[in-house]
């Protein structure tokens, strides 16, 4: 039952209270088993050990098999962004449930993991491949100012804070309380035989009205496709060093719409 320390956090799927209850119940069963030492004692020992393991590691194989995840930071009910949210913030409340836009995508990039982590960790790089972003400016440590392009020259701005940052593993962020838009995101990095797997979760809960409509439009009808294209551009940028394009190349169409220059 050895778990690599690096996988420890990822494997947690049991809630905090539940973990304590598991520990207490497991301990009680173990104590009972030590006293009885017969057949029921053996069964109790096994059950107790399983509960102790579950409590100590926060990982439950039964939950995993059933697809249940009661981890506090990413509960099934919230189905959020996988970031370790700060519990009190209203951003967290606004991103609860199935509200807003929630997308997950992954791409495998043939570059060293630390390079990709570093590139992403500098949020100012994000507009290079995220089409809906106009700029991200880093402010004081952990806080950044994001400007997104809406339709018809409309802009949406907010401040975000890094709430989780494990070097070469994960970066999580969310908008500050009281922002015009509630948003959170995370990116995970994993080694893969084909390169580095970059997994992105993004969540936006746009406010109602015009601003909300603008944010919805930013992502189009298929927000997943939008983030997929963003990740493709990231991959192209990191692997090929440039984003391929045919914009600006000649065609017979240009010849018809423009007078011929000498």
């Amino acid at each position, binding site marked *: 039952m050895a778990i690599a320390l690096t996988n420890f956090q990822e494997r947690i799927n049991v809630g905090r209270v539940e973990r304590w209850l598991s520990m207490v119940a497991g301990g009680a069963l173990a104590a009972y088993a030590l006293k009885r030492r017969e057949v029921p004692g053996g069964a109790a020992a096994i059950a107790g050990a399983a509960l102790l393991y579950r409590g100590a590691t926060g990982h439950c194989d039964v939950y995993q098999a059933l697809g249940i995840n009661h981890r506090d930071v990413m509960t099934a009910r919230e189905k959020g962004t996988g970031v370790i949210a700060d519990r009190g913030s209203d951003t967290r409340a606004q991103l609860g449930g199935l509200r807003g836009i929630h997308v997950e995508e992954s791409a495998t990039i043939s570059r060293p993991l630390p390079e990709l982590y570093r590139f992403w960790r500098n949020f100012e790089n994000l507009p290079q491949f995220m089409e809906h972003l106009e700029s991200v400016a880093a402010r004081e440590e952990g806080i950044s100012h994001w400007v997104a392009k809406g339709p018809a020259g409309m802009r949406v701005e907010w401040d975000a804070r890094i709430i989780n940052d494990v070097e070469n593993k994960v970066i999580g962020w969310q908008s500050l309380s009281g922002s015009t838009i509630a948003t959170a995101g995370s990116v995970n990095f994993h080694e893969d035989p084909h390169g580095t797997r970059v997994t992105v979760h993004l969540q936006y809960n746009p406010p109602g009205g015009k601003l909300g409509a603008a944010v919805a439009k930013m992502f189009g009808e298929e927000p997943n496709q939008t983030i997929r294209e963003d990740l493709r551009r990231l991959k192209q940028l990191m692997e*090929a060093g440039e984003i*391929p394009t045919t914009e600006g190349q000649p065609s017979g169409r240009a010849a018809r719409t423009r007078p011929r220059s000498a």
Partner: protein
Amino acid sequence: MKAVCWEGRNDVRVEHVPDPTLINPRDAIVRITSTAICGSDLHLFDGFIPTMRAGDILGHEFMGIVEDVGRNVTNLKRGDRVIVPFPIACGRCFFCKHEMYSCCDNSNPNAWMVEKLYGYSAAGLFGYSHMLGGYAGGQAEYVRVPFADVGPFKVPQHLTDEQLLFLTDIYPTGFMAAENCNIQRGDTVAIWGCGPVGQFAIRSAFLLGAGRVIAIDTVPERLMMANQGGAETLDSMDPDVFYKLRYMTGGIGPDACIDAVGMEAHGPHLDYVYDKLKTMTFMGTDRVSAFRQAIHACRKGGTVSVPGVYGGFLDKFPFGAAMNKGLTIKTGQTHVHKYLPRLLRYIETGEIDPSFVVTHRVSLDDAPQMYRTFRDKQDGCVKVVMKPH
């Protein structure tokens, strides 16, 4: 500059268009000295490939002189003489690193279009629909070459354009088709289609150790050319091709079969009429009779290699025969880059002189007429080379 533009089905015109410019740091501009019409361009001409737009510049077989390079291209300089592979490859993705250049992950700006159809997108190609990149092609005076530090391959001065030009596509395509057959010394290889790719497949099969090549086509001059390459020949319109192949191979069947025909096959049997009707009424995408026959004729445990281009969903595909006979099917757009040093060596040592396929030498202005001549196989046309300057 002048460029050959696709304007619609059966409509190719020479237009005056703006000169290409460097767009990305790894681009180069090449002044084209020779450019050819490929058999696969005829699929565009005939309107078989979706996502073409009126005004698209055609052409993916071209060579010339480097005119300008972007700031990240350090291995080329103005004045270098190069041939340019038809698939555009970044050289750095998983697929390029494994020499699967035509499967490059990063060169198709319109990858999403292909993903809807094929799941994943292969490389962008020059002048071959927006689905496959939307890149302007090289039947023009100049061309922009993306990822120019990976694609363009420098060639020696003492060889002529006609000897080198086909390194861009049809020679490596014929070679890969033969290589995919896993030829053992003395094997018999049957090849459907004696167009340029078929011709190079014949010669490559012998080079890789085939004992016999049986070439199948119906155009007399192409069969004659196949024969000059050492192949025995059969008429593809003969309804008895299967029986003749079986007889010629002592009842076993060819060890490997190559379909160098692709999606616009003709045939003597009812299945051709069926395909023709379906494709004409937009209920089918490809005409499959050559591929079906290759599967049917191949010996048990043999290989069917498919350099012929297909686009969509093949109807009445005899997969039962393929499965029960234990066939291996190998296919793919050509990983041109991978073969260049080896094939150039064959040309330099005189093992092969690829210029044998050229039947028509014309100027760029003749392109519209030549597309017709080539498509209708008139005037003994096997390969058209155009000189833009």
